[in-house]
């Protein structure tokens, strides 16, 4: 079985690899893992005053599907409002990358990572406003 062109492209040229200052109030950090594959995924978003994701970065150690899923989701969330971004479903990622059934959980991991990042951002800013 061959991996799709989209998947290989994201794996070979991952977008938005890097880190942001996790102590900054504008930055939300999601850290999730899938031990079965040995995946660890860190996904960060930078959100402006109007609740729009200006930038996203990720760092993933793990299999190709996990790297491609996190790379793709950083591209998709940029320019979206945080509430829109939290609507992204793993099935959309899996479909776009044509993930084989055994790798579906890699797309679930990416969805969990963005949700965790948004939650972190919201928690931080609730504290700041009170």
């Amino acid at each position, binding site marked *: 079985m061959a991996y799709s062109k989209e998947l290989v492209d994201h794996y070979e040229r991952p977008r938005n690899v890097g880190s942001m200052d996790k102590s900054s109030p504008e930055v939300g950090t999601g850290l999730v*893992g899938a*031990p*079965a594959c*040995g995946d660890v995924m860190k996904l960060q978003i930078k959100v402006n005053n109007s609740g729009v994701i200006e930038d996203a970065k990720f*760092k993933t*150690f793990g299999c190709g599907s996990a790297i491609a899923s996190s790379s793709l989701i950083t591209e998709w969330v940029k320019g979206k409002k945080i509430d829109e971004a939290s609507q992204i479903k793993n099935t959309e990622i899996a479909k776009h990358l044509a993930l084989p059934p055994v790798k579906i959980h890699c797309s679930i991991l990416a969805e969990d990572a963005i949700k965790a990042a948004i939650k972190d951002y919201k928690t931080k800013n609730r504290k700041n406003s009170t």
Partner: protein
Amino acid sequence: MKKNSISCWNCGNNVKNFFFCEHCKKIQKPIEHDPFQLFSLPYEFNIDIEKLEADFFNLQHKLHPDKFINANENEKLFSGIHSGNLNQSYHLLVDPISRAGILLKILINYDLKEKTVNDKILLFEIMELEEEKENLQQKKDALIFYKKIMGLIDDEIKTINNKFKEENYLEAAKIHTKLTYLKKIKNDFKKVEIEL
């Protein structure tokens, strides 16, 4: 209640042994089992590895397809399945990390597959180890790193052993998650070593 009465396909008597009929000594049809049952082991983490190995060779000696070259087709088939099961179960039990995983699955139906963890302290630690591994430049440093990983694995195996003894299975499951990551880093290291 699990039914304990299975009749021998050859003589019709009840059989209790997994492998051979106690009456006519014929090889039996393989039935569902877990690796612990196959080797008549209690559901405990701490097992006698030397005994396991001896039992494995002993059983393989009796059940290997080579011993059934002149047997009928069913017996040949049974022997092939038993022999394969023995290999697989032995390897799962001999590795403490996979043994812990099977035990957790049996005792508390814990399954690591398709599970997302969000234990930040653990994931941070793993992330840092991965970054350290990624930045290894020299063989000397790689060896130091490898020893560190091995040390961490040994420590966690001691801890998980205690947690199983205390029947603290949730804590054991947490340690098992960490061990699964450490094992992956250890296996990756083999690739790093070749590159350096």
